[in-house]
């Protein structure tokens, strides 16, 4: 048991006496809009992020629904070419920049990191709030661009199409991504400093939960990678406005240079997307097997390795771009290396289940589903690292299937699992368990039906970003769309019961899962400063008893 006693610092700081009202928590201290919009509390910032990313998820999802409906038939039925191109661009831009990159760090990272470390908040709470505003402003730019007519360059903005040929709102959209990039940097900066400087007494590095390790790795990538895409977007906008010739070959520029700059960030960005999810999985598996994670040190270091190696492989997006074959060879080799730490995690997670005491609560269902789906997603990434194969499947649905297995089968499943697991802590309410399990299974089945056929489509040669297609691909597309409707339903169910639970859910105690971790030593929901007294940590993470 972690002993919670007063640390000397508390007395020296003349902290106010322990909260008198036992019912007070961070949610009910004040109900005014101002107290939310000007909050310094990392937990309220997390809720603000939750609202934002949910909005963007459904916006991006709506675009996907329209796309999948259109793709039911080989010809154009629902939309024109222009509109379809704008739809897939919107889907990509919104999902990448405004949903999946900010979601886990912004919501669960913000909420949990300080509590897991035994701190009262992040190091720079006002910067944290500023980050949320920048994220929302960036999102508004993207929505404005959409309303004004949209953008049709794809979320990858390849030149010279985006600089010279596209007549759509490229700059507004790119600016939206640029602004919300600062949110990423601020979040990463906050997490790094908080982890280094604000661990509670006794919280040594190797006593930290693995979620913190994965957030640390994520923060490194956010801080180092985001500035590169910021400059790239700036250069793109400058070229578009001034006709300069940085990326446009007609004026002496190099379009492949754009690809290098773009992917130098955008590849590490996918590790921003998956590392936090992996951290969640470690927490869920430990809690619902009532066991420490097998190979803790290896799992912790694998997060750092992924962060480091992830910066060295960007060229694997460019094997057929006309980059030199020697660059291709090096990037391929390094891409195999970056897969190894992920494999290590999967093996360690599986070994964690051995001789555990496993329950089938909804969070665990999401976690178990994650292992299989991430495995397939990761392994198909290995296919793409293999030069001879990538030449064939590059820019086909094989790639689309690969990254959706990781982003949706991986990150979104983990996010949902984490949301369920920590929902009682965040809201003080329990969600309805039966409906949650139904939703988890629906999501799992719907997901596989949506995306597995796309591997086949890709190897058959169906290119990405195609509005119309040869008729022989239709069967697979119909299967995929059928899956998508099931998946969509699976996502709507938790929306409904989560909101329902806020008023009608059973009230939660401090530790409904009887799990280890400092967050379960606080009230549900916690008081604003998380702990009544600063905890002193004396045991390891996941110190379940035999």
């Amino acid at each position: 048991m972690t002993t919670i006693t007063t640390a000397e610092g508390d007395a020296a700081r003349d902290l106010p006496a322990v909260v008198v009202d036992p019912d007070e928590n961070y949610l009910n201290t004040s109900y005014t809009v101002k107290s939310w919009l000007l909050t310094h509390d990392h937990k309220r910032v997390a809720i603000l992020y939750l609202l934002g990313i949910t909005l963007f998820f459904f916006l991006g999802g709506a675009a996907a629904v329209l796309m999948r409906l259109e793709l039911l038939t080989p010809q154009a039925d629902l939309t024109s070419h222009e509109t379809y191109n704008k739809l897939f661009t919107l889907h990509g831009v919104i999902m990448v920049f405004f949903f999946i990159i900010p979601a886990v760090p912004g919501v669960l990272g913000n909420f949990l990191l300080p509590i897991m470390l035994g701190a009262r908040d992040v190091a720079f709470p006002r910067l944290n709030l500023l980050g949320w505003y920048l994220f929302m402003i960036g999102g508004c730019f993207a929505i404005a661009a959409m309303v004004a007519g949209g953008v049709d360059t794809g979320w990858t903005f390849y030149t010279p199409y985006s600089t010279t040929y596209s007549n759509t709102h490229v700059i507004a959209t790119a600016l939206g991504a640029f602004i919300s990039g600062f949110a990423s940097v601020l979040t990463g900066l906050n997490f790094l400093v908080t982890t280094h400087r604000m661990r509670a007494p006794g919280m040594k590095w190797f006593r930290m939960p693995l979620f913190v390790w994965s957030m640390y790795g994520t923060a490194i990538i956010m801080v180092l990678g985001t500035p590169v895409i910021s400059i790239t977007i700036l250069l793109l906008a400058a070229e578009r406005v001034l006709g300069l010739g940085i990326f446009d070959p007609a004026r002496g520029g190099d379009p492949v240079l754009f690809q290098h700059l773009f992917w130098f960030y955008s590849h590490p960005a996918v590790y921003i997307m998956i590392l936090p999810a992996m951290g969640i999985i470690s927490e869920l598996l430990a809690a619902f097997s009532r066991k420490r994670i097998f190979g803790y040190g290896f799992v912790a270091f694998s997060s750092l390795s992924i962060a480091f190696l992830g910066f060295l492989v960007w060229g694997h997006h460019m094997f057929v771009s006309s980059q030199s074959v020697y660059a291709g060879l090096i990037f391929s080799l390094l891409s195999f290396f970056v897969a190894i730490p992920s494999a290590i995690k999967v093996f360690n997670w599986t070994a964690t289940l051995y001789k555990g005491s496993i329950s089938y609560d909804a969070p665990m269902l999401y976690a178990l589903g994650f292992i299989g789906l991430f495995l397939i997603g990761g392994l198909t990434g290995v296919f793409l690292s293999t030069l001879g194969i990538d030449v064939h499947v590059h820019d086909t649905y094989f790639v689309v299937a690969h990254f959706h297995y990781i982003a949706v089968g991986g990150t979104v499943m983990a996010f949902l699992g984490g949301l369920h697991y920590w929902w009682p802590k965040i809201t003080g309410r329990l969600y309805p368990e039966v409906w949650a399990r139904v939703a988890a299974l629906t999501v799992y089945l719907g997901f596989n039906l949506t995306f597995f056929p796309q591997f086949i489509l890709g190897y058959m040669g169906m290119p990405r970003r195609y509005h119309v297609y040869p008729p022989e691909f239709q069967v697979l597309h119909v299967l995929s769309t059928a899956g998508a409707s099931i998946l969509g339903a699976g996502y709507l169910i938790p929306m409904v019961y989560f909101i329902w639970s806020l008023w009608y859910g059973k009230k939660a105690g401090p530790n409904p899962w009887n799990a280890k971790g400092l967050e379960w030593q606080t009230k549900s929901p916690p008081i604003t400063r998380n702990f009544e007294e600063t905890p002193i940590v004396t045991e390891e993470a996941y110190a379940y008893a035999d």
Partner: protein
Amino acid sequence: MHTQTDGSALATNVAPQFDDAEQQARSAVLGMWVFLITEVLLIGTLFATFAVYRYRYAHEFEEASLELDVVLGTINTFVLLTSSFTVALGVYAAKHGKQKAIVANLVITLALGVVFLCVKGIEYYAKFHHHLVPGPEYHFPGTASPVGHQTELFFTFYFLMTGIHALHVIVGMAVLAWVLKLALARRFSPEYHTPVEVGGLYWHFVDIVWIWLFPILYLINRH
């Protein structure tokens, strides 16, 4: 609150998330270092892109570079180097509780910052006057190549890099002005001088970036 031996007030307002003043100070310094690392990546991207074109269009870039005023650039280099020195003196003064010296050094640093920006302004105006600003009015006087847009590319990088740098100088000056305000209110002491330290760090970085920028833009073809 109690008074220090040197007469300054103890202004250790520790924000609620921190345990003590020391944790707060160390967090602020680490935060600034992390921020500066992100700035290195920012400027590094521009440097890398510049390097690609510097190599590819070596001749045009060398010719374009000759149009820059190396005298003004050198003056600005010394101005910033000196300002780094004075801000370091200011941090030293703060560590030793020398209230007057903190103020004096910050004022000199700010003044040098103003000088830097004025010289920059003169340079920019001259470029504008000579039609060397990228855009529809651009016209390169040399005989480098009829396809003049490679020299325009040099000036694109020149304005982008020195412009973003100047923006950071302005932000740095705003930060140091705020620090000066605190210094005038005698808020600093040997126990508490984090804003001076952190502001100084930022200013040093701004100086170092200029030390890199100056040779790669101004000195690539001087004999």
